[in-house]
């Protein structure tokens, strides 16, 4: 609707060229401003805003794909909190997120500092090598790592056997599955985060370090008192992105553990559980409740992250 109105108004001002001079610039800016941003808002309303609220609505119903829908109030949520599978999925999601994100961001920062060394030769090549894993699809990453972590013929178990260790059943245990999935996440994202940090490092004015050197600050002091505070916004950015991504992890566990998340449900994450409830068992009501709880968890995490990362600055 709003597009049509905008177009008509636009036509009017074109049709009367003499008056064009007298149409105030602010009026024209208002019309074209809203016209130009309208595609985003129209499509986002239909495929973004409406579904979010409708998910909340569905979550109060027993809603099979066919057949009668029945209003059940908060029963889906009550069921969720007493559902051991939900808690298992939450635990798995959290465990994979911790194992993958925390070491990853530390290593990415170290890698960025190394890539930023002035004497380094072949900078372009090393940056490219660091970034390359990020272009592969999650499905491809999962398939490759599946081969690497295979129990019988996987290269990793072969490497273990070279050191005289027994082959490990990566797919059959919580620990093995979480490590395998976390390593997929790390492999795909560490270089990406390092490049983001590198950009932030390069934007730090050189004279800050020169002044600090003259004042007698050591390299370590400079790192913690200049580098870290200066790239804080980028650290916050990567922490938020990794959290949102980590809470939504789906493709890797689905590919690695298969339907249901494996015999122990060791690969079942929240989004995986949501997917199975909705599109395998067709219980839309229950799946919608999972979706909303997942959303609230992400918000809660973002707030906690904000709180923790805001302490970086107050530390200096």
């Amino acid at each position, binding site marked *: 609707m709003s597009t049509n109105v905008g177009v008509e108004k636009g036509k009017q001002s074109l049709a009367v060229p003499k008056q064009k001079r007298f149409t105030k610039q602010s009026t024209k*800016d208002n019309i074209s401003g809203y016209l*130009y941003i309208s595609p985003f808002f129209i499509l986002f309303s239909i495929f*973004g805003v409406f579904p979010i609220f*409708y998910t909340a609505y569905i979550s109060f119903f027993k809603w099979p794909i066919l057949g009668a829908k029945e209003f059940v109030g908060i029963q889906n949520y009550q069921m969720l909190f007493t559902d051991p599978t939900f808690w298992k999925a939450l635990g798995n999601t959290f465990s994979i997120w911790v194992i993958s994100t925390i070491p990853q961001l530390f290593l990415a920062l170290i890698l960025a500092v190394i890539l930023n060394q002035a004497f380094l030769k072949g900078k372009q090549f090393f940056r490219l090598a660091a970034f390359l894993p990020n272009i592969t699809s999650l*499905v491809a990453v999962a398939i490759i790592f599946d081969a690497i972590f295979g129990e019988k013929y996987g290269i990793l178990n072969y490497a273990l056997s070279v050191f005289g260790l027994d082959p490990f059943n990566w797919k059959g245990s919580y620990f093995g599955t979480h490590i395998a999935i976390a390593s997929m996440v790390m492999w795909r994202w560490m270089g990406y985060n390092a490049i983001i940090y590198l950009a932030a490092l390069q934007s730090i004015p050189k004279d800050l370090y020169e002044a600090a050197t003259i004042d007698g600050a050591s390299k370590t002091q400079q790192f913690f008192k200049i580098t870290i505070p200066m790239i804080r916004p980028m650290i916050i950015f990567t922490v938020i992105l990794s959290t*949102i991504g980590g809470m939504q992890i789906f493709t890797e566990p689905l590919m690695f553990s298969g339907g249901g998340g494996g015999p122990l449900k060791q690969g079942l994450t929240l989004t995986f559980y949501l997917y199975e409830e*909705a599109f395998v068992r067709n219980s839309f009501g229950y799946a919608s409740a999972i979706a909303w709880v997942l959303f609230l968890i992400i918000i809660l995490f973002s707030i906690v992250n904000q709180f923790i990362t805001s302490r970086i600055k107050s530390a200096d």
Partner: protein
Amino acid sequence: MKEVGVKWYSPGRIIVYAVLVIMTFLSLFPFYWMLVIGSNHTSAINKFPPAMVPGGSFIENAQKVFSNIDFFAAIGNSVIASTAITVTVLFFSSLSGFAFAKLHFKGRKFWFLFVLATMMVPAQLGIIPQYMIMSKLGWINSLNAVVIPSMVSAFGVFWMRQYISATIPDELIDAGRIDGCSNFRLYWSITLPSIRPALATLGLITFMGVWNDFLWPLVVLKERSVQTIQIALRTLNGAYYTDYAMILNGTFLATLPILIVFLLFSKQFIAGLTEGSIK
């Protein structure tokens, strides 16, 4: 940049290069391993020690891939969806970005914050109603279901707004106005030609994102004839999971197009990524 008194073989430098060599090895090894398994016969992989170098069965494995899944149709679907989305995202993002950066319309700060806030909302949250909408529209098993909702991107709007604010001076816009340019002319003839680097980076990010997308296409594309390459790969992996050589061969073939696109644009892409994130 030569530092006086620091030899190239100082311990610090050796450590730096050692770390980078290890990093490069870990980054590239899975690609190499994909090629090794994908080009060997299954019997060469299923033994101890496994084959460590590429073998001669690449074409044989590829033929098995082509007979098990409709590989080229899936690649075609991925190309269509990725291209359509990339073109529309670039147009709508740069147009909105231009409006947010250079047009003084009422409430533009509010609406821009709104765009930023939408970036925080996880995509899965609305997946069930989205599925219902697609059902109602009859778009299940149609690429429309993948393309239409993704024609705009909050990240794209944000990216373009930042870039246009930082690179197009207001004086240029004012000069255009004095010469009688309409707002659309200001966008089309003045802004668009000057933001090519940002368009290239956003275009590549968008293209790769759609190419690699999994959950949503998995939900709405059930028929084999409309599946994108990622879903076809999953089918290949799920149905024939014992034949690693064939599966990894398919994975390699599916990764190749995006690898080529990326390597062609990599220099500009990484520069754009580092530049854009500072602003």
